[in-house]
């Protein structure tokens, strides 16, 4: 199993800005953790299926009928920034 972790790259994927100190500390701590989880390589899992969820899962359907949902004003009141009925974000598409 691979046991190194490129913290800067992973932080980019995870959308978290890290300080240099965090890169150093997390790099060490997570490298250490990967060393521990690599013990799983000792298990013979060649013929074992993966378990995503332990309880029997089934497709859950319901009638496609309108029902009350969360109140729009109440939800938008929690937005960091809003504009009318919308969440406002920094410009995404250039002018």
């Amino acid at each position, binding site marked *: 199993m*691979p046991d190194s*972790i490129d913290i800067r790259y992973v932080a980019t994927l995870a959308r978290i800005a890290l300080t240099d100190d965090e890169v150093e500390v997390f790099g060490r701590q997570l490298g250490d*953790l990967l060393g*521990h989880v690599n013990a*799983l390589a000792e298990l013979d899992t060649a013929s074992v299926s993966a378990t995503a969820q332990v309880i029997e899962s089934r497709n859950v359907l319901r009638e496609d009928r309108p029902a009350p949902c*969360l109140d729009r004003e109440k939800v938008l009141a929690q937005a960091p920034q809003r504009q009318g009925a919308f969440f406002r974000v920094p410009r995404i598409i250039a002018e």
Partner: protein
Amino acid sequence: MEYIEKSAAQIAHDVRTRVRSAAEVTDATLAHVESVEGAVGAYLTVLADSARAHAARVDERVRNGEKLALAGVPVAVKDNMCLDGSRTTCGSKILERWIAPYTATAVARMLEAGAVPIGKANCDEFAMGSSCENSALGVTRNPYDLTRVPGGSSGGSAAAVAAYEAALGMGSDTGGSIREPGAFCNLVGFKPTYGRISRYGLIAFASSLDQIGPLARTVEDAALAYDAMAGFDPMDATTVDRPVEAAAGALREDLRGLRVGMVREFDSAALGAALDALYRAAYRDLERLGAELVEVSLPTAAYGVATYYLIAPAECSSNLARFDGVRYGLRVEGDDVRSMYDRTRAAGFGPEVKRRILIGTHALSSGYYDAYYVRAQKARTLIAGDFERAFAQCDLIACPAASCPAFEFGAKSDPYSMYLMDYYTIPMALAGLPALSVPCGWTTPEGGRVPMPVGLQLCAPLFAEKLLLGAARAYEAATGHALARRPELESVRA
């Protein structure tokens, strides 16, 4: 003994029969909270006004003849569960000022049964931790020794119940977050079968593992809360649509006819002489109550922590992607939308949450997915299979709930040493099994001032909650360990 020290069952009985009003119980609880909360710090938000309004409504319902199972029972709600109109923070700066716009199903069911929400209880940030020290918003202390942690992540709910700041606590358990604080705070901490209680309105950490359950001072109280919360919910497609057997009315007197499995790999001798003696005495007590002890083996359980620390972070990295500064919670402005995401999440999440998001992102990333995430899911299959084979030979499993009693603040500064706290509770979570911790004695930790509680873990096959609670009740009644000591609150009253 003050009235607020009564069990939830007794309070509900008194309120139902109008010996006491819910308003009186609520006022007494709020007064007590005010006097001890400065020392304990169980709550992030005390809901005094809302609690009084709920209590008035309960009294009105009682007058109208409603038979409420939890009439007037003060409850502490872990702050990762939504309660309409209340601040719901997950112990995180990213949700520090977020007001929940709806109520979680489990909370709604507790309120429907007559419970009164006293406050939102502290927890490790996004339920990631085993001591409550990862909360970004407050320090919670163990009521039995204020220099020690209450356990976690449901440490605030546990401390509240142990300090009589509530009669019942609502917790969530992903790898041990109800059972470990239960053990640390002299409580019954009960994680039902995965899917028994709706997760709607529980802010997600690891969705295939997260399970709500009660913390209580007696098994009967835990059973009452379970009966109120359990059952199918159309708002959570993973809830199981099969009948719930009421547990509260079916508490056993003995363990005759039950085979209790002792796990060969969980030999308590590894925990030192004092804990070993307590656990051996507990197993003898199970036998004395009529149980037949049988040895079982969980050969892959030792890989539980490794398995968990890939699966839970992977799911957390996905679930916590929603905290991006757009729709709710903290936003830190940036030059563009991308830097807004990066800065918001950098400022809003604490170190443990960042570590788990990073490890989960890594485990799911291209080139590593099979080696980490899929391999962990396969290990999970093996662990669940171990339990299935064990339960062919026994009806229940008994083992330690934690590898030590409550420790001092700062004692587990290395992340991995904290992760090992859940060594005995993670395997059951990975297998989705119902399990609980029940007080089994006291020990003074090395360098400690006073004896601290120790928890015995009992685990049952899927959906065998009634058997599990019944057996725990028999053990509790025969031993009474929880009653041996009281929390040290007299000296701290404000």
